[in-house]
């Protein structure tokens, strides 16, 4: 759209307002087919880098630097208007790539939103205000009188985050629904449904707008894709689009590889030899407690599905494990549905994919939960004990703990893999099912089949 164009024009005149586009509509530009793919790959590298950073639990300051570096490395172009073009073209290409399933949309939405958030923070406050007005946010700054009346509370919130409240601070009063992340982190004072958002927090407001806009746009793109584009572009763009997401993000392990089928009796054995710690822990807990809470049932259940446990075997497995506490009828009534659901036999009939490391690392297990990533969620003491039980040597344990302290959870898991298998894992561990497959490959070099 023209908004984008005018930005570029003004930036070349050096009265720059903002170089951050809102991607309102596809650019009326001609794109060469090579660029189509190359630009998309470059942007994907940025998004993938962001995804890894989030997976490692990087703090906002670290993310800020990471995003700046990624952008510089992949998206920079000597000519400003070329860079802006590349930005917009690559975004729209990836929209097409990532509009096609719920899972893809979610990932893209979350990475693009994170990218937008940090790019917004790099902008000058003048440019930020301009972007705010482009979103047509109707909020006005809180008046002096009102500010005085809630000053104590605002100060308390600021101090709870280790900050101080300036006497002339500017706050916006917005419905709490508009700033979910600030509400979730208790980073705003909320009174009668309104959140008091500080000037340095408005990024959250803008990001919410960006996110909801992009989310809707992705649904529309998907509709267009399935109704017309896919057919029209059958021989040209469609193959590129379909290859782009899998080539870069790796497999999703939703289908076990053809040889990989396991039965209930194998599980004990392969759990000891080939499960990553997160799954071993869940498996041991279900053995011990004859129960797992929902998060654990999902994480382990989908992993087992990816490993090759068929639906009937999965039902038999969970039923037997729960049996001391849960009668057969009760099991059928309360748990069987969920298991069938995971296999796409109930409800929306989506064939759910096993959780990736990133998803597991970013989960937040609560009281009584056993899912999550042990490298991230265990205390040091418990993690050490667990590693020793896996047979990791004390020297290797120190190496693992070192990675954990630097929040490289996947690297910690990779080191554990190498220590347990006495063999290197160059690709690193990105997915529990990849850990399993790599392990089996080492342990069963001949036929690759299990047990």
């Amino acid at each position, binding site marked *: 759209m023209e908004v984008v164009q005018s930005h570029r024009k003004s930036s070349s005149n050096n009265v720059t307002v903002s170089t951050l586009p809102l991607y309102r509509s596809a650019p009326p530009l001609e794109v060469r087919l090579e660029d189509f793919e190359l630009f998309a790959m470059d942007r994907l590298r940025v998004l993938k880098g962001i995804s890894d950073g989030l997976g490692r639990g990087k703090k906002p300051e670290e993310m800020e630097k990471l995003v700046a570096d990624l952008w510089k490395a992949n998206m920079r172009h000597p000519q400003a208007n070329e860079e802006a073009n590349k930005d917009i073209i690559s975004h729209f290409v990836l929209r097409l790539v990532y509009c096609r399933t719920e899972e893809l949309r979610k990932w893209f939405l979350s990475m693009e939103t994170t990218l937008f958030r940090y790019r917004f923070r790099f902008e000058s406050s003048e440019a930020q205000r301009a972007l705010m007005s482009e979103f047509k946010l109707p909020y006005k700054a809180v008046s002096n009188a009102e500010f005085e009346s809630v000053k104590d509370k605002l100060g308390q919130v600021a101090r709870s985050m280790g900050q101080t409240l300036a006497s002339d601070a500017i706050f916006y009063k917005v419905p709490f629904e508009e700033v979910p992340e600030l*509400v979730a982190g208790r980073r705003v004072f909320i009174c*009668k449904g309104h959140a008091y958002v500080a000037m340095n927090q408005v990024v959250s407001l803008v990001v919410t707008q960006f996110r909801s806009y992009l989310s809707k746009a992705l649904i529309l793109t998907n509709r267009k894709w399935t109704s017309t584009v896919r057919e029209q572009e059958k021989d040209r763009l469609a193959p590129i689009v379909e290859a782009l997401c899998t080539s870069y993000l790796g497999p999703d392990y939703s289908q076990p590889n053809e040889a990989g089928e396991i039965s209930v009796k194998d599980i004990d054995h392969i759990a000891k030899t080939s499960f990553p710690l997160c799954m071993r822990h869940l498996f041991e807990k279900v053995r011990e407690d004859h129960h797992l809470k*929902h998060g654990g049932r999902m994480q382990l259940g989908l992993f087992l599905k990816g490993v090759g446990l068929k639906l009937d075997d999965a039902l038999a497995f969970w039923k037997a494990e729960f049996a001391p506490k849960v009668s057969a009828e009760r099991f059928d009534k309360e748990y069987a549905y969920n298991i069938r659901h995971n296999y796409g036999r*109930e409800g929306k009939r989506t064939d759910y994919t096993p959780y990736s490391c990133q998803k597991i690392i970013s989960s937040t297990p609560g009281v009584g939960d056993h899912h999550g990533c042990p490298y991230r969620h265990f205390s040091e003491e418990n993690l050490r004990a667990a590693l020793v039980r896996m047979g990791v040597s004390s020297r290797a344990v120190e190496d693992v703990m070192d990675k954990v302290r630097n929040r490289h959870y996947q690297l910690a898991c990779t080191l554990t893999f190498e220590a347990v298998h006495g063999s290197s894992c160059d690709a690193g561990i990105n997915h529990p099912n990849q850990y399993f497959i790599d392990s089996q490959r080492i342990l069963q070099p001949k036929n690759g089949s299990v047990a």
Partner: protein
Amino acid sequence: MTKEEAESGRDDMVIDGAEQANAVPDGFDANYLRIYYGKLFPHADMFKWMSYGNDGKHPACDRSYFGRREFSFTLENDIYIRFQSFNSVTELENSIKEKCPFKIDIGPVYSVDPAKRHAYAQGGDNVFTPVERELVFDIDITDYDDVRYCCTGADVCLECWPLMTIAIKVIDTALRDDFGFNHILWVYSGRRGVHCWVCDGKARRLTNEQRAAIADYFRVYKGNENSHKKISLPGPVLHPFLARSYTEVLKGFFEAKLLPNQNLLSCQERYEKILEMIPDASVASELRGRWQENKRASMSKDDINLVRWEQLKSVLQSGKQKTQGLRRCVEEVVFSFTYPRLDMEVSKHMNHLLKAPFCVHPKTGRVCVPIDPNNCDEFDPTTVPTLSQLLEELNRGGVREDAENELDGTSLGESVKFFRTSFLQPLLKSCKEEIERSYNAKLQQSKNTLSW
């Protein structure tokens, strides 16, 4: 992915073998339940509630609204039927009376009639999707097992029930004062917990992300038995919500009730749990030393728990302790033992099901009656009317001319009356206003477009 979790009702997730053997003597059975649904269950009130004013005559009423709501029934033989929907109060009432469900769960309002979801599924594209749902909370006493010594599992007594009471106080106040909600219904879950339904229009329309934000706002627990820290209160001061909860509810309750009643510091096994939470080992061992010494030689007549608590506080909060972690530790202990423990997943997703109020819990026979948050201290789960008690009252009352009087004659009458006057009437009033408002806004809008 977690959406189907609630379908079987959170209330029955943990299994207690002993309980089944030890059935309620006066029992719960389908015949009793049939009479209950026939004579006492407030079908019309439930319909009114779930219609949110859309059953009126106003041109802006959404006639399809109630019919898009999912109900699920659990039948006597454990058959579970989901995606029931009804187009009128008569349909709802007839179905309940005919099927006589042991449990009724309420789900979201969907984009289309859930009973016809398959017809829409052909189109692909997610047409069948939840569009409205009360913001709900589920608090279960079994999640407090590590901080209560009187009961475990599904059992609950008057010593530990107050944990639920203060959970109601903390959450209710925040929902009203912080989030600005007005139409909030608290319900006894029939055995060991409470449910909360926030029914304001803007609560029903929250997205999953916004629900999760509210749930996280309420969350102070981080980690579990695999990592030790249970409570984490970072920052030099508490957020106003936590500070208010602490000073107005938690602190007083902990010191006056929980500490002495649960004997939290009376013996080593118990006080070790609290000492563990002190990040400085030397401070912990100083206290341990003192407490081991004065085991027998307790001079004062004061409660030993309170004496020791004062000692702990004075050591941790004395001027000597410069580190913030130690000073904060007193608050962390209180939060650990008293702060509400929500089942987060229930609140975060629109399509979680929750048991309907006025159901009868099949294990206890008790009716899921509303709890008045303003008088929640007086609520006693052990005196909640049971199915058999209600039937006895019905029999004693003899034959009355109409159903209303029959209800009034039983101990359920008060509960239904409370439901109507304190919850339903104000709710419907504001629903009507909202419908009127949105209608006028639409009129205004169409006028504007016409003039243009």
